[in-house]
């Protein structure tokens, strides 16, 4: 039986960078109990002798020749930016200032 506590769910929300309300955490804790029990069924047949499939195709690295091809202009690349400055994305403060 799988279950997660409210604190576990709050930690997942923190890892996923979503600031959730108490009500959301409450609801998700209940829902996760049900969903995890349902999805845990995969363990019934996932024995050690079964290889894993990560992708439907046998993937190999694809390389292209190193030639310049047309691409977005800086204006186009920045056209959807919430904020930009001097042809760059302007982002909020990344490094903390407090000790």
């Amino acid at each position: 039986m799988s279950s997660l506590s409210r604190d576990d769910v709050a930690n997942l929300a923190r890892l996923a960078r979503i600031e959730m309300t108490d009500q959301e955490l409450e609801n998700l804790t209940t829902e996760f109990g049900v969903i995890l029990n349902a999805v845990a069924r995969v363990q019934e047949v996932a024995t050690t002798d079964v290889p894993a499939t990560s992708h439907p195709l046998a993937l190999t690295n694809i390389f292209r020749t190193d030639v310049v091809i047309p691409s977005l202009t800086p204006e186009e690349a920045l056209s959807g930016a919430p904020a930009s400055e001097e042809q760059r994305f302007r982002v909020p403060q990344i490094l903390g200032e407090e000790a």
Partner: protein
Amino acid sequence: MIKSSAAEMAQSLASGATTSVALTQAHLNRIAEVDEKVHAFLHVDTDGALKQAAEIDASRARGEKLSPLAGVPLALKDVLVQKDVPTTCGSKILEGWRPPYDSTVVSKLKSAGVVILGKTNMDEFAMGSSTENSAYGPTHNPWDLTRIPGGSGGGSSAALAAFEAPLAIGTDTGGSIRQPAAVTGTVGVKPTYGGVSRYGLVAFSSSLDQAGPCARTVLDTALLHEVIAGHDPKDSTSINAPVPQVVAAAKSGDVKGMKIGVVKELNGDGYQAGVRQRFEESLELLAQAGAEIVEVSAPNFEYALAAYYLIAPSECSSNLARFDAMRYGLRVGDTDGASAESVMNMTREVGFGREVKRRILLGTYALSSGYYDAYYGSAQKVRTLITQDFNNAFAKCDVMVSPTCPTTAFKIGEKANDPLAMYLNDIATIPVNMAGIGGMSLPCGVAPEDGLPVGFQIMSPVMQDQRMYSVGAALEAALLSKWGAPLLSQAPSLGGAA
């Protein structure tokens, strides 16, 4: 005019009986008349569509050689980017965003002269089976406006069923093309994974996502399939091989000597009586057309749903990390001194809806250290077992078939608060995505108990997509001669001039 098939419209355009501008305007008028009730569209690109139509008409007047669908209008699911046209994926986090480039599907549509009418509604980031998860409100099923049109591509399927467009593009991660087709009485195809480029398709679950054609007839679907399919150097998972000859298959509809495998596990308990009845009748028609019906077994399909709800959320938790409020889309809380992390946290809280958050967290959990093997790892093993089931079954038959969905369209709101009940809708469509093979849904009648459409699913091996078109065309022809008119002629008129 708007009730014709795309192939018939193309013929009228080629013969000069109508123009693309007139045809496009007729569909724009229809949208203006009925979309308030249906809500299939999130954005109607009136000027862009008419401009594109005028260009096609001018090319035709100059005697230029045009591709078969040139001048025919289409509805585009709002998960594929189109340059300068709003693309939201049904989410608040992308509200107002205008992409600076075209997806490969859109480039191919434009070069084939297909006129793009606008962007269709969908469950947010394609997560859902009803379009109720759209941040912009649900789409209504034209057969019964109180019911869901399927999802995630409910806008595309509803647009077809409401005669707002003769062609549409969908995307299918676990059934998002086929289930909407089934519940609206339209046709939808998920091509072989890698058959259609994913470049410019906003990713939900990259190893499962596949764009595909939607229409009202099997031939129209095939014509659109050949427009959008083919190798694309911009997508490293695009298959570098010739496109299966799906138009030829749809035109011949020959099933003589074909072996059709009925999947034992995708029928019976949990499937509505009327769904089973229409499915069985369709098998008889295919047998009469010369196919041999055999039973095949896929014992691991019962684990597909569980594996899907680990794999898809895991990949989504990674893919949706790109919505970080830094480069495009919504940004919330960017006040003096606010950190990037708090802006990110607040933006994602406000910008994402309930189901998207649920899946991101589920995926974060399934991928986390200590749980990875038990959840994501086990799900990947189930994926192997499902692929083996398909391989074993395809050794005994040319295509596999099942009902597309266990039930007909449910009521809007009926399952909104029960994620597991909602997920069960996709029980018959998910195995196809897990194995990366092709799948089609086409209408096979209405259920006697509720008068709502039932979908018939055909599954074909990797890059053998033409087989499902042969079978689909054969069944469609047999049903049409039985009914005397297309199934959609039984749908309510929705008012308006049509």
